[in-house]
């Protein structure tokens, strides 16, 4: 019988790793991820989880230890946030290039300087190109579900890619929400035992990580790129199987009341739940508006996005990160690029807010909807506008 408990997203993710019978955890503590390694360490100490917990001495070593453990075929898990994700940056690329199916939950945190332990998406956006499968969670339930799903997909022999599960630091990681936990038997049906086909073993000596001279590097990279894109099939299959067993169905994009809407708002992460309420409020007042919650980030869901915006005139994209001196918020730049060649596409308006733990309220999203509409009609001097910044923002020219 599945049970409904109050859990922080951190504890939900730890619980998912436990139910997945993870073998190795190599993690370094960093706010706001700390509750994940703490809970896992506790589980190991109490015998609730039989795993090797490696208390590494930095995040760079955390991901490095994960490479080693995945290479011998152990089910491997880690977690980090913000600066920690940055410190392991070079290793993150290696995990994908060497095709090790590591699962990592990231409690999205702003990047220094100034130092901020609070939530935004700049850590996630800095690892866009690392070649991991990446999803953004909207709630603690999703944090649990996506962590479990991540093992299923990453470890599939047709995939063999590491998976990043993003959820907002503090607003999800440290907030208790009701989470439905499945039966262990259901998890065992969903998640097959991990068999890594190229495990390092003296019985069959292989070389992992040979270097790539110029006459072969390009071929290696294209092979990785094509394989990542192809993994979409298994990503969707994984979600289908998840729904069939656990009753919750997920997709690359989630459409909230978008049917016939002329104006669409696109958000990611926990702000989507807040934005949905703003959509309800506006709809009650007769506005033609809907919300797209972008869940699958990599490989980017081009097909689903293009389908979702068909018929809309305005698409407002909300970013929780600045791409300094660049083409606007990272997500809005990618959305623009994804829609550029479409014969019919909505006009795109870009907003940035929620940086370094600055909250966005329902009223803030109502403002975004109204101001977004206004910008669509009358234009704006700025490449993107901001929400909740004290002082009139100018000088962001496109």
């Amino acid at each position, binding site marked *: 019988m599945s049970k409904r408990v109050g859990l922080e997203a951190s504890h939900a993710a730890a619980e998912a790793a436990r139910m997945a019978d993870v073998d190795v955890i190599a993690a370094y503590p960093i706010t706001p991820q700390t509750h994940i390694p703490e809970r896992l360490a506790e589980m190991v100490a109490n015998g609730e989880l039989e795993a090797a917990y490696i208390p590494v001495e930095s995040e760079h070593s955390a991901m490095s230890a994960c490479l080693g453990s995945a290479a011998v075929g152990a089910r491997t898990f880690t977690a980090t946030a913000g600066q920690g994700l940055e410190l392991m940056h070079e290793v993150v690329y290696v995990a994908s*290039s*060497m*095709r*090790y199916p590591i699962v990592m939950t990231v409690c999205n945190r702003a990047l220094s300087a100034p130092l901020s332990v609070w939530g935004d998406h700049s850590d996630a956006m800095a690892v866009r190109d690392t070649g991991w499968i990446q999803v953004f969670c909207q709630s603690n339930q999703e944090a649990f579900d996506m962590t479990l799903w991540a093992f299923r997909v990453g470890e599939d022999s047709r995939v*063999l890619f590491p998976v990043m599960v993003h959820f907002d630091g503090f607003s999800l990681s440290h907030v208790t929400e009701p989470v439905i936990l499945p039966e262990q038997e259901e998890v065992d049906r969903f998640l097959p035992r991990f068999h890594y*086909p*190229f495990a390092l073993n003296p019985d*069959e*000596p*292989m*070389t*992992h*990580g*040979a270097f*790539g*001279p110029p*006459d*072969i590097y*390009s*071929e*290696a990279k*294209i*092979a990785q790129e*094509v*394989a990542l894109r192809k993994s979409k099939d298994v990503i969707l299959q994984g979600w289908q199987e998840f729904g069939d067993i656990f009753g919750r169905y997920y997709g690359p994009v989630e459409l909230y009341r978008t049917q016939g809407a002329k104006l669409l708002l696109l958000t990611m992460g926990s702000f989507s739940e807040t934005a949905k309420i703003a959509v309800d409020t506006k709809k009650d007042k007769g506005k033609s508006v809907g919300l797209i919650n972008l869940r699958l980030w990599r490989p980017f869901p081009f097909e689903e996005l293009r389908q979702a915006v068909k018929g809309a005139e305005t698409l407002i994209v909300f970013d929780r990160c600045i791409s300094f001196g660049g083409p606007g918020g990272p997500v809005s730049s990618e959305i623009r690029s994804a829609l550029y060649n479409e014969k019919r596409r909505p006009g795109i308006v870009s907003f940035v807010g929620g940086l370094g733990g600055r909250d966005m309220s329902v009223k803030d999203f109502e403002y975004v909807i109204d101001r977004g509409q206004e910008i669509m009609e009358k234009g704006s001097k700025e490449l993107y506008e901001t929400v909740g910044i004290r002082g009139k923002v100018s000088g962001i020219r496109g």
Partner: protein
Amino acid sequence: MAKKKLKAGTDLTWMDMDVGNIVKEAGSASARRTGDWRTERPILDKEKCNKCALCWLNCPDAAIRPSKEGFYEADLNYCKGCGICANICPVQAITMIEEAEK
């Protein structure tokens, strides 16, 4: 003797790449004949040689092989001509000569 056929990077298309670029064939680099680096090569005086095998032990390239007669001789496919064998031979049975010499 170089047994394996040399696999050049330029033979492979992106579709030929193994997952994660893992090399499954152990020791496949032995197809590379590093002997062509040589400017000098060792000559063994079998009269002097006492078959102590120290030359075999001290070759950085594993190029010295035991022969059927019990001597230890350089495989010229791989010998880079460093001269360590000549230097450490306790009975001076090995001399290095110019590669161009016959």
